[in-house]
């Protein structure tokens, strides 16, 4: 039987009113923001299902905007995020969308930049404040952001995975799960680890040739 922390039961500390529509929405958008490049001037939120239907009442809009501003689900400022975004000159739009076979609380979060192409992340808030990221810029993925996560995109060739896993094990980082998908000659690599990803591990991974995109997410307990 899965063991729970006491603070999974008494917790999370969060802004209300709903762990899936509010706290989970903050976390979803924050994870998306961490995957994106800095310097976006506009974010468009495409809302699906129950997110689209009840976002006003649960403050899902404020929660999502708080997430892209980098706030935690327990931050008092979540409530005022729309005003904060405005004073930061960040443009925000909400649109309804229908995804096929998606979880009811799903959003596509699209980041816009002045001098580079836009970038999007799709994910769902699956209850209790937990989220799952299912697509990054067109690549299907699946991770929760609950564990430290490494996300890489590289030109597919032999020996990449063993290079990466050697670096991790040399840095005493234990792999919890790993998934690699390929399209054309590009591979998308998602790996969740048991230990925090250290700066030295990041540096070594970034030195590997032919890695086009690398993202590292270390979760904060909230």
């Amino acid at each position, binding site marked *: 039987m899965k063991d729970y*922390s006491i603070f*999974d039961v*008494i917790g999370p*500390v969060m802004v*209300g009113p709903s*762990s899936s529509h*509010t706290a989970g929405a903050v976390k979803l958008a924050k994870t998306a923001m961490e995957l994106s490049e800095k310097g976006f001037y506009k974010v468009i939120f495409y809302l699906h299902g129950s997110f689209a239907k009840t976002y*006003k009442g*649960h403050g899902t809009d404020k929660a999502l905007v708080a997430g892209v501003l980098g706030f935690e689900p327990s931050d008092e400022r979540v*409530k005022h995020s729309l005003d904060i975004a405005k004073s930061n000159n960040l443009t925000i739009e909400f649109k309804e969308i229908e995804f096929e076979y998606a979880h009811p609380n799903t959003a596509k979060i699209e980041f816009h930049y002045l001098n580079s192409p836009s970038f999007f992340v799709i994910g769902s808030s699956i209850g209790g404040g937990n989220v799952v990221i299912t697509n990054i810029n067109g690549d299907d993925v699946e991770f929760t952001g609950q564990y430290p996560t490494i996300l890489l995109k590289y030109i597919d060739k032999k020996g990449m995975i063993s290079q990466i896993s050697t670096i991790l094990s040399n840095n005493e980082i234990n792999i919890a799960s790993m998934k690699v998908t390929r399209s054309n000659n590009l591979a998308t690599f998602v790996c969740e680890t048991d230990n925090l990803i250290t700066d030295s591990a990041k540096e070594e991974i970034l030195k590997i040739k032919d890695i086009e995109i690398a993202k590292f997410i270390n979760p904060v307990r909230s």
Partner: protein
Amino acid sequence: MYNKAFDVIKLCEQENKKISEIAILKEAKMRNLTEKDVIDEMKSVLEIMKKSATSGLESPIISHSKITGGNAVKINNYLNSNKSLSGDLINKAMAMAVSTSEVNASMGVICAAPTAGASGILPSSILNAKEKLGSSDEDLVNALFTAAVIGELATKNATVSGAEGGCQAECGVAASMSAAAIVEMAGGSPIDSFNAASFALINVMGLICDPVAGLVEYPCFLRNASGVVNAFVSADLALAGVQSLIPFDEVLEAMYKVGKSLPETLRETALGGIATTPAAKEIARRFYNGTTE
């Protein structure tokens, strides 16, 4: 370390410890922390709870949807008028439970216990038991660990989600957690705590989830008020020596089965119960048309 109430009781007896002590040891071991670390973490939770349970008492808090609010103040004023039928403790407990519910509905900061919708019950229970018993903050922190064990057992063996098990799984489990916690504060044994936890859950077995307009507001705050009363009643029954005929593990299993056999319309979908009354539909219609004020 434990998956059932049976295991917890055995551990308490073998090691001559309270439920809270077992919980602190388990948490420290599981996360490789010191006991002091986990106790400190719980202290910060207690501070959040104190704030949410009192901030709605003096000035009205209106919900984010503007559909509900200001009721904690009303209950508190009524209590101060000395006219209440059910007395100071019960009215104060209801006011404080509703305060947290209102903080939640207004996008304020709360601690889910076990969920955001039911978050008013536990803070109010322990804070009002403290008033009555003259307990210390340390006792409150311990009580939160005891409550968490009940919630953990419910999470492992049943559910604490309204969408899966109805409100019995949210406000019912919250009352159950609270009852066990305040029994320990009052000096009851682990078995007394589990008796109280059983009573609280049995009292609301089958309670559905039917939020008006699909929002965590109404009847949620009412069920936080009745939930804290349920906790006190159940705790007193157990402390008086009333025994539960059904062990807590079996009560949980029964609750889970009842939850699963509830039709989906009565599990958070707002498609049944009071959510589909004409009045509720009108509130929902006005809200989604943007004309609530």
